[in-house]
C-alpha cells in the first residue's frame, strides 16, 4: 500500500486537496446562516436543480460546465430563498416536487439525447455527477484556478457581510424596520448559496452537496454557544474533514467526495455526544 508521502509527490493530489479544502470551507461558512434560517432542505433542492443544469450543459456540449450550472443554480437559489418566504413556495411539498422534477428531467434529457446520438450525452457519467466520482483527482491547474477564485470570492464576501448576515438571519424584520436593506443581504446569502452548490457539485456530486453545506454547521452548533464560535468551529470541522477525507480516500481508493462526507457524519456524531456530556457537566 502507498503511504501518504508517496501520494503527495504527485501534482494531482495537491490540486485535489486545495480544491477540496476551499470548497468545504466556503460551503461550511454559508451553511451556518442557511441552517439557522431553516433552509437546509432548500440547499438539497438546489443541488438537484444543479444536476439538471449540468445535463443541459452536457447536451449543449459546453466545455466548462460551471458556465451553465452556476448561473442557473444562482437564479434558482434567489427564487427559492429570497422570494420563497413571501410567496410561500418554500413549503416542503414544493421543495420535494422541485427536487424530484429536476432529477427526473435531467435523467430523461440525457437518455433521450444519448439515443439520438449526442456524443457528449453518451459519454456523460451519471453516477459521477450524482455522487462525485473521481473528478477532483483529474483536475487541471486552470480548473483549480477557477475554484480557488470562486472560493476566495465567497469567503471574502462572507467576511465582509458577516455582521449583517448575522443580523438578517437572526431578525430580518428588525433590520428592515430600522431602515436597513435586509432584502439585499438576503439576496447576497442566496447568491452565495447558489455559487457554493454549483462549486461543490464537481467535488461531491449533486446528491451530496447539501451535506457539505449543512454538516459542519450542525456539528458546530452542538458545542458552540456564540455565533462567532459556531462559524469558527464549522470552518475548522469542514477544513479538517476535507483534508483527512481526501487523503484517506487516496489511501483506500474510495471516491474522495463521499469519503469527506462520511468523515463529516462521524464528526457530527462525536460532536453530538460531546454536546450532551458538556451540557450534563454544566448542570452538575
Amino acid at each position: 500500500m502507498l503511504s501518504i508521502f508517496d501520494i503527495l509527490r504527485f501534482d494531482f493530489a495537491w490540486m485535489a486537496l486545495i480544491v477540496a479544502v476551499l470548497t468545504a470551507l466556503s460551503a461550511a461558512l454559508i451553511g451556518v446562516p442557511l441552517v439557522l434560517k431553516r433552509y437546509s432542505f432548500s440547499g438539497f433542492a438546489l443541488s438537484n436543480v444543479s444536476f439538471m443544469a449540468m445535463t443541459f450543459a452536457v447536451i449543449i456540449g459546453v466545455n466548462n460546465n460551471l458556465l451553465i450550472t452556476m448561473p442557473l443554480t444562482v437564479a434558482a437559489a434567489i427564487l427559492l430563498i429570497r422570494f420563497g418566504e413571501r410567496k410561500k413556495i418554500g413549503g416542503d411539498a414544493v421543495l420535494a416536487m422541485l427536487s424530484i422534477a429536476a432529477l427526473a428531467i435531467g435523467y430523461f434529457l440525457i437518455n433521450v439525447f444519448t439515443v439520438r446520438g449526442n456524443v457528449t450525452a453518451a459519454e456523460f457519467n451519471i453516477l459521477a455527477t450524482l455522487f462525485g466520482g473521481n473528478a477532483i483527482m483529474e483536475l487541471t491547474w486552470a480548473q483549480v484556478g477557477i475554484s480557488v477564485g470562486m472560493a476566495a470570492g465567497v469567503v471574502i464576501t462572507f467576511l465582509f457581510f458577516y455582521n449583517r448576515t448575522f443580523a438578517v438571519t437572526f431578525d430580518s424584520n428588525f433590520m428592515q424596520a430600522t431602515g436597513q436593506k435586509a432584502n439585499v443581504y438576503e439576496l447576497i446569502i442566496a447568491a452565495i448559496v447558489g455559487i457554493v452548490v454549483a462549486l461543490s457539485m464537481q467535488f461531491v456530486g449533486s446528491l451530496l452537496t447539501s451535506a457539505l453545506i449543512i454538516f459542519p454547521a450542525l456539528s458546530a452548533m452542538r458545542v458552540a454557544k456564540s455565533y462567532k464560535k459556531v462559524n469558527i468551529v464549522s470552518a475548522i470541522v469542514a477544513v479538517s474533514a476535507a483534508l483527512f477525507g481526501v487523503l484517506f480516500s487516496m489511501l483506500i481508493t474510495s471516491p474522495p467526495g463521499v469519503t469527506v462526507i462520511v468523515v463529516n457524519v462521524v464528526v457530527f456524531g462525536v460532536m453530538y455526544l460531546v454536546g450532551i456530556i458538556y451540557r450534563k457537566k454544566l448542570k452538575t
Partner: protein
Amino acid sequence: MFRFLEAAINSKINVGAAFCRPHIFLKMKKIENENEELEVDELVYTNEDENEDENDSILEVGDLVLGYDGKAITGEISFGINEGDYLCIIGDNGTGKSTLLKTILALHKPISGWMDLVPSRKEIGYLPQQNAVQKDFPSSVFEVAITGTLSKNKWWMPFYSKEQKEDTKKALEATNSLDLTDKCYRELSGGQQQRVLLSRALLASKNMIFLDEPTASLDIDASCDFYETLKKINLEKNTTIVMVTHDIENALKHSTHILDLKKDGFFFGTTKEYQNN
C-alpha cells in the same frame, strides 16, 4: 394643529375632512401587486411648511386602512402623538394591532391612508414578536444586542467600532442585563431575552421605540419588571414609546395615550379620557 386632530377624533368628526390638506393628504391607489417592494417611503411626508413645532409631533396617522391581499381588516384609523408620549395600542385579537405597528414600520403595505413619521427609519428602535428561528439560535447576548447599532454603519463599514461596543454595554446596563453579556441568548429566560431585545431597540433608536407584545410570554414578575424598565426609559430620556399589548392593566398604569382598536372603529385619547369613557 395636533390638539385639533385629537379633539376631532374624540368628538368623532370625520378626521379625513378636517385634515384635508392636499400636499400631505394622499389616498393610496389600491395595491395591485402586494409582492412589490414595500415603498412606504413615498407615503411619508414631513410637512415643514406647517408650524407644528410647538407640540413636537412625532407620528401622525390619518385615514389609515389596514389589510391583507387587498382586503381591508380595519376601518379608517387616525391618531397622532408627540415626542415623549407613551402610547399603548390595545384591542381584541384580529383587530389589526400588530398589523398597524408593522404598517407604521414599513413592513406591511396599507390599503389606503397616510402617515407622517418624523424620525428617519434609522433612528427608531423596534422590539418585534419573537420568531421561531430565534428560539434555537446559537449566539451570545452581546452579539444580538450590538446588531442594534448596525443602522449607523454605512455600507462600506462591515465591522463594529469600539464606540459601538461601548454603547452596547451601556444599553445592556440600562435594561439591567449587563451581567448577561456573555451568556448564550437561547438559554435565557423569556424576561431576560426581552430585556436584551429592548437593549437592541434602544441602540437603534434616538428617541422612539416600537414594541409588539413584549410581555406576551412573560410571567407576572418579569412583565412588571419589564414595564418598570420601559417607564424609566420613557421618563428619563423622553423616549417616545409605541407599544402593542394585551395587558390592559399595565397599559393603563403606565401609558399617556391609548389607542383601542375595535371591530367597528377605534378610540384614541389620553389614558385619563379612556378611563373616564
